[in-house]
C-alpha cells in the first residue's frame, strides 16, 4: 500500500526531471520545445469542447429529471431477490455518466450504511473498477473527430453492465455476509 502510494507520488516528478535532463543532454532547446508542444494542446481542447458540452448537458439533465429514482423503484424487487443492496444500482448507473456525481453518491452510501457494509463494499469495488465511460468516449472520439463508432458504444455499455455484475459477485465471494 505505502510503497505503491510513494511510487505514485514519485513517478511524475522523476519522469519530468528525467525528460528535461535527457533533452538538455541531447542539446534540445527544451523550453522552446515545450512551448511548441503545448501550443497544440489548445487546438485539441477546442476540438473536444463541443463533444464535452453535448455529453455534460445530457448527463446533467438526466440526473435532475428523476429517471434515476424511477429506475431504483423499478429495480428494487429483482435486486432484493438476489440480496443486492439498492445503492449498488445507483452507483452502477451513475459511474459511467459522471465522476464527480458518483463520488458524491458513493460518499453518501458509505455514510448511511457504514463503511464495512455490503452496500459500501460493492459500491467501492464498482467505483474502483468502472470508468466514466461516456466522458472518455466524448473526449477521445472528439479529439480525433471520429463520427462512425461502429460497435464500440454498445460494447462499452454492455461491458459496464457485466462489470457491475462481476463486482457484486466478487465482493460476495470475498466478504461473506450472513
Amino acid at each position: 500500500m505505502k510503497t505503491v502510494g510513494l511510487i505514485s507520488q514519485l513517478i511524475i516528478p522523476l519522469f519530468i526531471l528525467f525528460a528535461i535532463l535527457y533533452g538538455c543532454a541531447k542539446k534540445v532547446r527544451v523550453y522552446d520545445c515545450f512551448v511548441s508542444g503545448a501550443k497544440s494542446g489548445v487546438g485539441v481542447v477546442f476540438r473536444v469542447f463541443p463533444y464535452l458540452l453535448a455529453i455534460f448537458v445530457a448527463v446533467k439533465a438526466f440526473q435532475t429529471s428523476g429517471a434515476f429514482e424511477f429506475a431504483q423503484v423499478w429495480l428494487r424487487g429483482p435486486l432484493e431477490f438476489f440480496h443486492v443492496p439498492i445503492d449498488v444500482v445507483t452507483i452502477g448507473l451513475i459511474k459511467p455518466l459522471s465522476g464527480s456525481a458518483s463520488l458524491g453518491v458513493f460518499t453518501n452510501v458509505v455514510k448511511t450504511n457504514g463503511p464495512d457494509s455490503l452496500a459500501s463494499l460493492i459500491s467501492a469495488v464498482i467505483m474502483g473498477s468502472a470508468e466514466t465511460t461516456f466522458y472518455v468516449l466524448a473526449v477521445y472520439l472528439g479529439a480525433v473527430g471520429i463520427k462512425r463508432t461502429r460497435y464500440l458504444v454498445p460494447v462499452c455499455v454492455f461491458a459496464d453492465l457485466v462489470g457491475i455484475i462481476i463486482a457484486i459477485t466478487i465482493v460476495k465471494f470475498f466478504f461473506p455476509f450472513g
Partner: protein
Amino acid sequence: MNTVWVLLIVISVLFSFLNGRLDAFTKSIFEGAKSAVEVSLFLLGIVSLWLGITKVIEDSGLIHHLSKFFQSFVRRLFRNIPPDHPAITSITLNFLANVFGLGNAATPLGIKAMQDLKTLHPGGETITFEMMVFIVVNTASIQLIPFTVIGILADYGSKDPAAIVLPTLLATFLSALFALGILFAIRRLLK
C-alpha cells in the same frame, strides 16, 4: 453516441415532465454547459502541459527508447501498428498513467494516443479497431490502488479500508478481459 445522446435527452425531458421538474430541466442544461466549460478549462491546462512534455521527449529521441522498452507488451494487443510507430509509446504511457492512478496525465496521453492512431488512417471518420481496443481498455479503469475510494472508506472509520484493493483489481481485470473478449469476438464474427 448518437443513440445514447438522443436517449438521454428524450428520457430526461419525459421524466422532467412526469415529475413536474421542467424548470429544473432547463436549469440543469445550463449547469451542464457550465461544467463543460470548467472541465475544458482544466483540460486546456493539463493537456497542453503534457503535450509540451511529450514534445520534449519526442525531440530528444527519448520516446524511441521508451517505445522499444514497452513494445512487446502493447504490441500483443495492437498487432496492426507498425513496430516503430509513436502510437505504441503514447498508448503505453497512457496505460502506465492509468495503472498508477494518475488521471491528470492519463487523459492527455490518451488524446495523444488517439491522434497517433489516427495517423495510421488519416482523414477517416470511422473508428479503427485499434482505437476501439484502446478506448475499451481505458474505460475499464485499470488502476493498482483506488486511492480516493480507500480514502473515503477510511474517513468513515472502516476496519480495513485496503481490503477492497484485491477485489477491485480482480473486478477491473475480469471486466477488462471480458470487454476485450467481446471486441475481438465481434471482429471475428464480422470478418
